[in-house]
């Protein structure tokens, strides 16, 4: 059972959440220009990373908000929680340092002022504070 820190509600059991798969997959900008191969990539191909993976979760029985998470797919360690629309935090920052940032604090209700998904350009409190501003995909 994972213990997941919802940015709005704090630490809750995994059973309250719904998994949303790989994060940062955006809808094609010009769908009409895609060939079959590119459509297949968009529809059916997702990264299947062994190691740190950026993924979406929905707090379905809590605040019903989506958010992003960095999780190690081997140890299952949760390395960062950050809002939808925010860039993926750099994983160069050691997990211990990450864990100290506001966005992953055990009971982060006080940091929930930046609700995930409310603004596509907002960054999480944690990511700006520790200066981890790598653009999306840069650490992939």
């Amino acid at each position, binding site marked *: *059972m*994972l213990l997941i820190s919802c940015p709005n509600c704090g630490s809750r*059991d*995994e*059973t309250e959440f*719904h*998994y949303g*798969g790989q994060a940062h997959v955006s809808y094609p900008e010009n769908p009409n220009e895609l060939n*079959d*191969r590119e*459509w*297949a*990539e968009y*529809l*059916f*191909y*997702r990264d*299947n*990373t*062994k190691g740190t*993976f950026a*993924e979406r979760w929905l707090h379905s029985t809590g605040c019903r908000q989506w958010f992003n998470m960095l*999780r190690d*797919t*081997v*140890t*299952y360690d949760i390395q960062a929680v950050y809002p939808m629309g925010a860039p993926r935090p750099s994983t160069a920052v050691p997990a211990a340092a990450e864990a100290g940032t506001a966005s992953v604090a055990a009971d982060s209700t006080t940091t929930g002022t930046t609700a995930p998904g409310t603004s596509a350009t907002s960054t999480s409190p944690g990511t700006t504070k520790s200066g981890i501003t790598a653009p999306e995909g840069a650490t992939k």
Partner: protein
Amino acid sequence: MSTHQLPEHPDFLWHNPEPKSSYDAVIVGGGGHGLATAYFLAKNHGMTNIAVLEKGWLAGGNMARNTTIIRSNYLWDESAAIYEHALKLWEILPEELEYDFLFSQRGVMNLAHTLGDVRESIRRVGANKLNGVDAEWLEPDQVKELCPILNISDNIRYPVMGATYQPRAGIAKHDHVAWAFARKCDELGVDIIQNCEVTGFIKDGNRVVGVKTNRGTINTEKVGLCAAGHSSVLAEMAGFRLPIQSHPLQALVSELHEPVHPTVVMSNHVHVYVSQAHKGELVMGAGVDSYNGYGQRGSFHVIEHQMAAAVELFPIFARAHVLRTWGGIVDTTLDASPIVGTTPVENMFVNCGWGTGGFKGTPAAGLTFAHTIATGAPHKLNRPFALERFETGALIDEHGAAAVAH
């Protein structure tokens, strides 16, 4: 060596050779599928200068972890063809491999708990019959007759509204299946190399010409990937992507009991499937964990959920105990069907995506994949399961027949 029979085992069923500097083909992954592929390459195509490279010990991946259910009652023609071919091979393999791995055709029941289940199941029985697959629809009292310990009363959360039944389906001893293939491979001259992890590929342009391993570089004309949960990792090393997501899938056993469970019962709807092993353990499988994972372990709530379903369906199980639980990493596709065929890299072939239910497919995966590796072209049974189907849209959606259950 061919005269050895159960129960007397020779000290060794295969040798442990040092890797040679080059082979005609290298199979990555020494699970059931890798071993079956090597066997059919040697037997049907005369390719004996080949090696199976296994990063751990032989058949210690999903082959060691599955609940061994074998059946062929899938919905679509393409699936019925390949799984039924596999079932026919299971029926002759003990003799062919000279190894009685206790293939027990005790039948498999797939329960229906909702009106939707009932309709889907009856439709599948019809489709199975048209494809020559033995299948029957059972009413609840017939279900009870076949498996008296099942609770068919209508005061449970998901009452049993009937079941599909495939009499020729059953279970087999998974380890012995692997050992049977390994011994024959060894006899035919195949090198089985354990503790040999593939860490990269050597390419000449877009053509693979060798593999890098923790035991040195090996040149090869052809590479066949049979790495189940790690298929994406290997594909990435080779420079292409697969539409696969790896998930933990768990199972468990109870202590030994007197024979109480005569068949195999599966329920997609409440996520449990149960058989009783030859020795007496109740063997039960759960659903996959929702998240991607390579950890060979899953979350405990999945097991709790599975036990709740098991105890409601089989009230006498309340007196049994969970002895061991474990997990494997299953390679799932979006249409719940496997991928067997060529890849974007020349001379590299892939067999993966069997997900939660590839044990039953082992012989057919081996047969068709060997054909594809040897000839460079698909066998008629695996042609529909090419990687290209995700581009053409010709998906083979087996979620109804395959999803959670095996």
